[in-house]
């Protein structure tokens, strides 16, 4: 399918439009809440919540006997919420560390969910068909009712974040200080976790319980690379989430058979990889360039002072010195030849016809300044 055709279908094809809208909405919400989860070092909590939601989905189906999106989401939310509270409870009441509590909750709830799912699927009725798409997600199954549930619950979640912005920021940065102010931080923690649960369960049908945590962690991790402001980070994370969600959902809906979860994960991974590599200041490329630049500065200074030291043995300016001599003086750093070229291009050193090097007048001044700087550092 070519790009123009895809763009046309995105707006006018009923199925594709529904899928794209749903994926975009859930991407915005999970990206927003994911920013807080990542900053609070709770990336794995999202994983525990999404896995813990599975038994809730199956039980909701067993009780209602139908796949009503609202009830399935309510079931998922209750189970996911219970899972999250169980993690908090274990951490508070026992001496087990948080990652252990997360591991226990994730595997136990998910195990129960799988048992229930297997049991339900043995029932002769056909109505349970498609329940297992909750494992890896299937955006193509989204209908308008699903999108409405996602949009309404997602708006509630975003509204809570907007209202309690200041409290959530305080909780994420310095919980104990907040407590010292007399603000009920435990209540805020429960509130933020509840909203995170909402953000996760509305994505389960599309992305699946197994990979939903990627929608929580990846957009936020990518967004953190580009900014030092919480507000900008949350907005960017929401944009990345929407982008990844739509790309993955559309890719999986148009190419039959690809589960949406993995497709979405691939899409957001692209964003993460690009962000880790290219972001200014925090990105790998930026780091590398800075490192090289520092290295060059140090090398230039070293060769400059070496030339100055050699020059001080001779009365007349411009007495040339062989490259080999300088290389011997600076054996540990290497790159002397290139550094000399740099110095020459800056007019600090000159190369004579007999392939020897000497400082220019400007170079001598610069070398004296460099030596003064070093002594200044030592003092």
């Amino acid at each position, binding site marked *: 399918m070519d790009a123009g055709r895809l763009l046309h279908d995105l707006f006018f094809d009923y199925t594709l439009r529904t899928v794209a809208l749903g994926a975009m909405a859930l991407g915005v919400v999970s990206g927003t809440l994911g920013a807080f989860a990542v*900053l609070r070092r709770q990336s794995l909590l999202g994983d525990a919540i999404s896995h813990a939601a599975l038994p809730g989905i199956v039980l909701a189906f067993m009780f209602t006997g139908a796949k009503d999106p609202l009830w399935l989401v309510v079931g998922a939310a209750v189970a996911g919420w219970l899972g999250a509270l169980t993690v908090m409870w274990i951490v508070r009441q026992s*001496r087990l560390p948080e990652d252990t509590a997360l591991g226990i909750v994730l595997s136990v709830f998910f195990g129960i969910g799988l048992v229930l799912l297997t049991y339900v699927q043995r029932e002769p009725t056909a109505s349970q068909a498609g329940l297992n798409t909750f494992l890896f997600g299937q955006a193509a199954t989204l209908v308008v009712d699903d999108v409405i549930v996602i949009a309404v619950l997602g708006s509630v979640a975003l509204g809570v974040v907007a*209202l*309690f*912005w*200041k*409290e959530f*920021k*305080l909780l*994420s*940065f*310095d919980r*104990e*200080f*907040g*407590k*010292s*102010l*007399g*603000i009920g931080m435990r209540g805020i923690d429960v509130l933020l976790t509840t909203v995170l649960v909402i953000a996760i369960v509305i994505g389960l049908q599309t992305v699946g319980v197994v990979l939903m945590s990627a929608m929580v962690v990846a957009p936020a991790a990518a967004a*953190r690379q580009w*900014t*030092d*402001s*919480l507000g*900008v*980070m949350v907005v960017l994370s929401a944009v990345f989430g929407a982008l990844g969600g739509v790309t993955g959902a559309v890719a999986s809906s148009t190419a039959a058979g690809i589960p949406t979860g993995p497709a979405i994960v691939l899409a957001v991974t692209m964003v993460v990889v690009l962000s880790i590599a290219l972001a200014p200041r925090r990105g790998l490329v930026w780091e590398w360039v800075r490192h090289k630049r520092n290295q060059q500065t140090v090398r230039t200074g070293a060769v400059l002072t070496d030339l100055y030291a050699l020059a001080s043995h001779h009365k007349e300016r411009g007495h040339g010195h062989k490259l080999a001599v300088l290389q011997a003086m600076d054996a540990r750093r290497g790159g002397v030849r290139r550094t000399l070229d740099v110095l020459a291009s800056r007019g600090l050193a000159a190369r004579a016809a007999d392939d020897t090097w000497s400082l220019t007048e400007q170079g001598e001044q610069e070398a004296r300044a460099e030596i003064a700087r070093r002594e200044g550092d030592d003092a």
Partner: protein
Amino acid sequence: MNAIEINDLTVAYQDKPVLWDLDLTVPSGILMAVVGPNGAGKTTLIKAILGLIDPAAGQVLVQGKPYRRQRHLLAYVPQRGSVDWDFPTSVLDVVMMGRYGALGWIRRPGGRERALAMQALDKVGMTDLAERQISQLSGGQQQRVFLARALVQDACIYLMDEPFQGVDAKTERAIMDVLRELRDTGNTVIAVHHALQTVPEYFDWVTLLNVRLIAAGPVKEAFTEANIRLAYSGRVPFHSGTSNGTSNGDGSGKGDGDDADDAPWLSALR
């Protein structure tokens, strides 16, 4: 009225007591140091006063009433290392957090909070760094940001956990000037402190702590060589097995072993 009154305070983590049966009265308008070796319960004392941890027994009165109703009177400077300084926020934002308690739920900080925060930053000499991202601050600047955040709380009792940890000499003087000004305007300052040699110069009162209260009072009376030895030469043995001789209370690694030989700072007293 006394700023703080502590009666029979005992705090235990799991089954290990951290503070044992502590009675302490802190009068208003003083600068008080809390000193003692590592694990003596200094941070725990600060947190117990703030109501951040539940004591196993005893009570804390702030200006005569339980702290729950007096929280607005207390300002807190936690240890610098207690937060993630790579958090995406600015200096001004962190300082404004000191106003969150007075603001109440949901309401956003506005122009008034911004102005108060800038005033506090001015007092600690950091107005030019107001918009700076906090990960780019030095240790001393981080400490001053926390101090400014406590200043905007507009409290009358300031509880500080190692306000001089990891700061340069110039910043230490600047912080000290602020603390003295607080004291001189009628506030009470309680600070966990590590450098014993500066206690007489910086503080009016001192509390020597080693799980139990060793001594508390005006520096001249309480900060004696005998009391310091008592606080630093191993734990007060109230149950066996804990006397592990953690004598180098400032954690700088200078001195090791027991009793007199490990106390170069004692010369400051003589």
